[in-house]
């Protein structure tokens, strides 16, 4: 009967393996038009004229002046227009929208735009527009640094990363009932609803958002769907007909968000044994042309920048700056992969400098229960940095291989990392998420806005509810996320869907169990009729955060991970081949072990791609390799063998002790791989570590 802890068959499994699951491009509506976005071809300038004769030829055409409400993409700041009218800030910026019933005719349509070009800012270090800056301060860094016997400095860089969900962004907007219904491939229905109410000037009651089966997100369908949804909705309202926009791969890669490139500088004071005495960290993120989610990406990045280590004196300065490139945005890990890459490669360099074993250095400094993080958060009993490190080292036979590989073309490297579950700081309090349970004739239905994007939301939530109610897993169902039906459970992001939303659902189920008073759902239904229980997030009393000072409990709980990567260099081509990754991750409780393993394996593979092969080639502020032919992601031949170990130290904050798992797996692979490359005596401090970069390190850049 118990399903938690069992790898029960996932709810959406059969629909997906039979090809009957319906994604956005599989749907159609009577009178459907196809939409297309005309985009800027320059990175910066002014629009002087837009010329076409398309209305006469039966096209529906919409520009900035056709926006019924405010011409912005409502998110954190109001700086991004839905359609540019005068000023262009990046290549591929939307300017004009076209719709036509014939896709071929639509594709062939010509629009001429005259620009007055300006010099774009493409180097984040040359940008004088700061979207957001922050400081984390602990102890007295200046004094501690002055007294430190050894100082190690370093600068580390990471590039863009493209999400490459295999289903591109797509929506259908249907004008109906005095408003709009928007179907789409998306992570956050209520984000889209908010954006459309502002853009269309309509009340939320007539702006309905329905998530269709979604072919991957990874953060790429967190904020971007508000843009494409806005475009389709503006066209649909003007046309009075449904409008579908589904990007092809090239447009998706060119125009949508990517992971923020980063430059992170470390200055660390240590004693001769390797104890961290003082840390100064500077973070620069390239935000792209508009603010979008950069402030919160920076925030998570900064909080994770000092790694899972104890140090009494820490100062972290972060800023995210504007460049004339398409906005960067949410991507699995959300700033933490960038800053933990820097920290972990820097730790390796500290070990090299002191001549001590890199594992020993990490053991010495790893956070233990009772220690404090950079924001002063006291670590709870589920702090497992040391356990994951020791298990990964043992399991991978690290010590023997480290010795055996020395001087060969093989290397082995380690990374230790952590990841906070849920929104940062007071984020969950502001979200005030709701979840509901509804009794049905067949059992129970879950009502949440949390979306299934492949990670297993429906299955995992059903397990939590079934066991809490004491009913079979099979009798728990989940409503399709539809803002007309489900409450706002917050966005499906930040490793919060299990720990935060799952916990609210568990509280709903606890109350429903009491109300049922021992009756089965079917018997209760017969005797008393409908029953709906709705609950809201409740902040744990002892979780405290100070927004102004940037101190306190940044997250209610953390997952902990350690990766050991083994690589081999081809001495002729300088290609680095990942041979094997051992990954140990402590995530509180695996509600569904196979889904958890799936998150770890998928995230690890994505992290290996980030480390070695995924290169966004930017030319004049635009992605020059916007196709899968030459932006490559790991195939079956590029992924290493994986040995995945799941450890469980329950957190009191999550259902059945569960913490977040979705994002953490991508924090570790890049530094572990680069540290394995460093074991080959190659000083690499930047990813992706492409063969040409390795060749430069081997042969010199001259």
């Amino acid at each position, binding site marked *: 009967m118990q399903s938690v802890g069992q790898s029960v068959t996932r709810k959406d499994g059969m629909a997906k393996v039979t090809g009957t699951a319906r994604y956005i491009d599989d749907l159609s509506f009577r009178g459907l038009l196809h939409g297309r976005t005309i985009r800027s071809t320059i990175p910066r300038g002014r629009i002087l004229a837009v010329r076409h004769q398309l209305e006469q030829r039966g096209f529906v055409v919409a520009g900035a002046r056709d926006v019924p409400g405010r011409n912005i993409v409502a998110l954190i700041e109001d700086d991004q227009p839905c359609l540019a009218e005068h000023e262009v800030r990046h290549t591929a910026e939307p300017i004009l929208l076209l719709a036509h019933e014939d896709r071929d005719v639509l594709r062939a349509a010509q629009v001429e735009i005259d620009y007055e070009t300006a010099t774009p800012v493409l180097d984040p270090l040359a940008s004088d527009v700061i979207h957001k800056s922050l400081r984390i301060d602990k102890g007295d860094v200046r004094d501690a640094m002055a007294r430190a016997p050894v100082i190690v400095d370093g600068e580390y860089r990471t590039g863009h990363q493209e999400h490459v969900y*295999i289903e591109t962004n797509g929506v259908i907007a249907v004008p109906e009932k005095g408003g709009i219904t928007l179907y789409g491939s998306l992570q956050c229905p209520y984000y889209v609803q908010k954006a459309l109410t502002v853009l269309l000037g309509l009340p939320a009651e007539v702006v309905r958002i329905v998530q269709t089966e979604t072919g991957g997100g990874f953060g790429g369908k967190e904020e971007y769907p508000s843009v494409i949804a806005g475009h389709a909705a503006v066209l649909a309202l003007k046309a009075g007909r449904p409008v579908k926009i589904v990007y092809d791969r090239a447009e998706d890669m060119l125009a949508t968000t990517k992971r923020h490139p980063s430059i992170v500088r470390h200055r660390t004071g240590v004693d001769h044994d390797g104890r961290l005495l003082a840390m100064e960290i500077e973070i620069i993120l390239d935000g792209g042309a508009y603010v979008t989610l950069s402030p919160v990406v920076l925030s998570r990045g900064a909080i994770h920048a000092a790694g899972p280590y104890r140090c009494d004196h820490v100062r972290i300065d972060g800023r995210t700056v504007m460049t004339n490139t398409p906005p960067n945005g949410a991507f699995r890990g959300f700033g933490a992969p960038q800053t933990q890459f820097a920290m972990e490669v820097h730790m390796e360099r500290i070990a090299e400098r002191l001549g001590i074993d890199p594992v020993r250095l990490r053991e010495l400094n790893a956070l233990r229960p009772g220690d404090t993080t950079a924001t002063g958060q006291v670590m709870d009993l589920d702090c497992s940095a040391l356990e994951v490190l020791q298990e990964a080292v043992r399991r991978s036979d690290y010590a023997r291989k480290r010795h055996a590989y020395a001087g060969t073309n093989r290397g082995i490297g380690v990374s230790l990392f952590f990841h906070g579950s849920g929104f940062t700081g007071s984020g969950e309090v502001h979200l005030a998420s709701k979840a509901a349970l509804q009794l049905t004739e067949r059992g129970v239905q879950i009502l949440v806005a949390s979306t299934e994007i492949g990670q297993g939301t429906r299955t995992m939530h059903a397990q939590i509810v079934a066991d809490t109610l004491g009913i079979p897993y099979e009798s728990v169902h989940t409503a399709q996320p539809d803002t007309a039906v489900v409450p706002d459970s917050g966005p499906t992001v930040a490793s919060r869907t299990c720990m935060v939303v799952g916990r609210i659902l568990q509280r709903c189920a606890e109350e429903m169990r009491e109300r049922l008073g021992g009756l089965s759902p079917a018997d209760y239904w017969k005797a008393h009729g409908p029953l709906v229980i709705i609950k809201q997030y409740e902040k744990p009393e002892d979780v405290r955060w100070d927004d102004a000072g940037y101190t306190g409990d940044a997250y209610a709980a953390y997952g902990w991970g350690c990766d050991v990567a083994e690589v081999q260099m081809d001495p002729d081509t300088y290609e680095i081949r990942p041979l094997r990754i051992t990954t140990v991750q402590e995530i509180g409780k695996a509600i569904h072990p196979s889904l958890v393993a799936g998150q770890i394996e998928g995230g690890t593979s994505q992290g290996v791609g980030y480390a070695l092969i995924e290169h966004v080639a930017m030319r004049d502020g635009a992605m020059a390799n916007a196709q899968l032919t030459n932006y490559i992601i790991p195939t079956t031949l590029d992924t290493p063998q*994986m040995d995945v170990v799941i450890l469980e130290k329950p957190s009191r904050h999550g259902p059945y002790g569960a913490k977040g798992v979705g994002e953490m797996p991508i924090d570790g692979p890049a530094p572990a791989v680069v540290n394995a490359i460093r074991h080959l005596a190659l000083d690499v401090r930047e990813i992706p570590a492409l063969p040409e970069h390795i060749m430069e390190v081997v042969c010199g850049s001259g």
Partner: protein
Amino acid sequence: MRLRLNGAQVEVSAHPMKRLLDVLREECGLYGTKEGCGEGECGACTVLVNGAPVVSCLVPFAHVEGTDVLTIEGLQGQHPLQRAFAEEGGAQCGICTPGMIMAALALGPKPSMRRIRDGLAGNLCRCTGYEAIYRAIRKA
């Protein structure tokens, strides 16, 4: 044009240069075959033509005249690979899954790990890291 589609003789009228992918989806109503890239790189649109896997986004409809075309719908949910993918977590977001299963089908029964890795190298999955897909194929 006449062809065998999922075991049945059919006659389909479409432009000979139309992509097989579009003919399957738009003319035949078989939406199980997905488009991921439109350039033959991701394999989401894989179907079998005379038993061999092809990326249907690169095949003009004229090429399949008189052939035997098998799509995910042709397995009718009965194939052991489908069950194994569902049970082992071989499908996460599911968009690559129909193509992945068709490519796996072409590997034949009980393929070696080497053969699996080689045979699926043209099918991208962004969710699984392929591990659960290997487990599913080895189980089926």
